[in-house]
């Protein structure tokens, strides 16, 4: 079955490339050099190289989309090096019968419990303001290897989602996802009824998430909108996450936002931790934010978040400035989550029409992981530049500096060559 699927996919690759109208992509070559403290007094140097490639072939409404990563250490020899990761390898047919899009292969999926990629098929039907998406496939093996899961029946996901904006200013969506995880078999020592130790082979069925999701959003005016979302766990038969947000612009250039969520802990059904499910508590969060645009050059943001848990709470405060050539942010956390005072700065400023873009980053934190822990400081600095002699080719060089309780005066170096292209093959 798997061989047939791979053969079918390779056939599609061949067919698409035979008739392709455009060929485009991006190739990035980078190296990252750093030193690692392996043990007390033992430090090793690494020089990791990454070749990242994405290539797309297109013919009218048909595309083949790919993304690969080839990595290797240039200083050390590892058993697993070189490693090839396949992030995307899928065939896409758009606008079939004027309303359908079909994707087959390794493709991305974004869902709160299934973000990432999967090997399978996705079909999207779109008619006017109605959209129905459905997907089915297997989980991707570790390291994004070019192979399929060896236990499809226990290691798959399936989902569908209906969304509509047919009523003016209203967004409504209803979705379902069933994501299963293959469990590893293992041997463990257990006690029998007479308290004798015995080695047993432990086999568990697949654990899973089975959620029903609903989204409802409404724009009352250009200045006021509300969005809500509910995730209902069909296994535990209770809401697992409720989110609501309201955005309001009381005046020109000013935005206010209020966000609330209630989260039950995310526990896979059939995992060991289900035995605690009845005893655990949810957390709730309220966050209020404001952004103000002084002019086209300066936007200020601020937010205040408050999280409650059983018998505890934590607070976080953020303030920041955004300008065309950078951001600066101050953040403070208090309470159960831990204490932190953090300043982060990132700036990049294009010179000579983008030929050279120097960049600078700084992050400094004083923090305590809990009230009784010692206070620590960490500092990181980034400095580098991007050189783009042609639109299609650029070079990056970045130096990094870290200072913390483990890595004293630690220096790292990052270099990258980035190339992109778009070729009209003109075969049609």
């Amino acid at each position, binding site marked *: 079955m798997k061989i047939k699927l791979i053969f079918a996919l390779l056939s599609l690759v061949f067919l698409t490339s035979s008739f392709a109208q455009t060929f485009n992509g991006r190739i990035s070559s980078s190296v990252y050099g750093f030193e690692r403290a392996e043990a007390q007094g033992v430090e090793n140097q690494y020089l990791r190289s990454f070749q990242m490639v994405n290539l797309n072939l297109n013919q009218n409404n048909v595309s083949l989309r790919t993304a690969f990563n080839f990595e290797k250490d240039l200083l050390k020899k590892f058993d697993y090096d070189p490693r090839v990761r396949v*992030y995307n390898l899928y065939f896409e047919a758009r606008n079939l019968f004027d309303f359908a899009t079909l994707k087959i292969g390794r493709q991305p999926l974004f869902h709160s*419990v299934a973000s990432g990629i999967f090997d399978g098929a996705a079909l999207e039907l779109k008619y006017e303001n109605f959209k129905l998406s459905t997907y089915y496939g297997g989980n991707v093996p570790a*390291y994004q290897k070019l192979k399929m899961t060896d236990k499809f029946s226990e290691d798959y996901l399936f989902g569908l989602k209906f969304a509509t904006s047919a009523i003016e200013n209203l967004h409504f969506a209803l979705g379902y996802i069933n994501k299963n995880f293959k469990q590893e078999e293992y041997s463990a020592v257990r006690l029998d009824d007479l308290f004798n130790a015995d080695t047993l082979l432990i086999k568990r069925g697949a654990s899973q998430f089975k959620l029903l999701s609903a989204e409802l959003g409404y724009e009352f005016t250009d200045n006021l909108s509300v*969005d809500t979302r509910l995730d209902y766990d069909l296994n535990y038969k209770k809401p697992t996450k409720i989110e609501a947000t309201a955005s309001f612009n009381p005046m020109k250039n000013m935005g206010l936002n209020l966000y609330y969520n209630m989260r039950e802990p995310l526990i896979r059904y059939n995992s060991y931790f289900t035995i605690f499910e009845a005893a655990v508590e949810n957390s709730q969060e309220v966050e209020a934010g404001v952004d103000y645009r002084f*002019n086209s050059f300066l936007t200020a943001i601020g937010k205040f978040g408050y999280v409650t848990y059983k018998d505890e709470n934590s607070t976080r405060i953020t303030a920041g400035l955004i300008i065309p050539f950078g951001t600066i942010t101050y953040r403070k956390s208090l309470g159960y989550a831990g204490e932190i005072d953090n300043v982060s700065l990132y700036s990049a400023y294009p010179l000579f029409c983008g030929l050279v873009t120097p960049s600078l980053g700084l992050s400094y934190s004083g923090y305590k992981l*809990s009230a009784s822990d010692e206070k620590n400081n960490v500092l990181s600095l980034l400095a580098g530049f991007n050189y783009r002699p042609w639109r299609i080719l650029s070079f*990056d060089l970045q130096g990094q500096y870290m200072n913390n309780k483990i890595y004293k005066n630690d220096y790292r170096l990052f270099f990258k060559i980035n190339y992109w292209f778009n070729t009209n093959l003109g075969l049609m």
Partner: protein
Amino acid sequence: MKMKHFYSILTIGIIGFLFFTAFTTVPFDKKYNKEIIKFSHQFHSELTDCESCHSGAAKAENLKSPLLPTKDDCATCHDVQDTDACSKCHYEDVNEPLVQKKSQIIFNHAFHKEQELQCTSCHLGLDKVDYSFESPNSKPTMKSCYNCHNEKKVATNSCEACHVSTANLLPNDHKKSNFTTLHKFAASKTNADCMMCHDNNSCSTCHVGTTMLTEKNTASDFYQPNVPSNFIDGAKQQQVTRVHDLNYRFTHGIDLKGKTKECQSCHQVEEFCVSCHGLTGGDISLGGAMPSSHLKPGFVTFGKGSGGGEHAKLGRRDIERCISCHDVQGQDPTCITCHNEKIK
């Protein structure tokens, strides 16, 4: 001087600099051509085509080339030597050339003309207004570019194709106080246009949590989720600086406990966390990084009625933290030593 004071002064200095530059920089000449010349696009659109007046635009290979009509262009129809007719177009004592706005976009009018594109395909609504600034769509929006520049038809949607620099490309609707949290709502709308800038690969920059992720980011097993992204050509392409700062391994616990971020959005926590927090970590900054709460007296108490101690309280409060280290594929979780109830 203490380092803390140094950084405080540095931060205040940077903020002061940002405010100073933001309020003293003049973005562009605010003068509109409405104040220089009397003109109606609406009227002229009925008489001639765009190129007759914008003769430079058809030949322009970039946006610095002259795009606006010159006196010679007007002279093809108007008698510019007739001094009695000056006031038909000119205001008294105003004889300066038209102001061409500066742009940070790379655009080749000549090339697009060769592709037999009509000016009005991109410059919309000029036939209904006098001056271009009066029409909200006369200056093409990125959405109109995306009709062709979508990586699926003939034109690329690589940012570098049109933008002078990708370093600070941030739409205004992203400059929100909690955009990171709320972008999910915008992205799930049926009319979402995220794909104009973010293709499937750029989303994977963060949303990369694949199942059974066993990469541990230890010395012998690097975790490297980078994929080529369409929206970055600068230093930010390196994930560790784009998503988390370099020292995040030391402070991430605060985000985890504070629910500031949902780690599961990107990490398969059952696999990812234990690689460092397990007792056999290869990196001394990570290996066996047991939470300090576990080392305190009374963390675990035994016997009926004891309540289990502090660990029971913490588990009830936030069991996801327990799961991130103790739900280990391929071996018994520590908890099973005492909690050996039947799994559902």
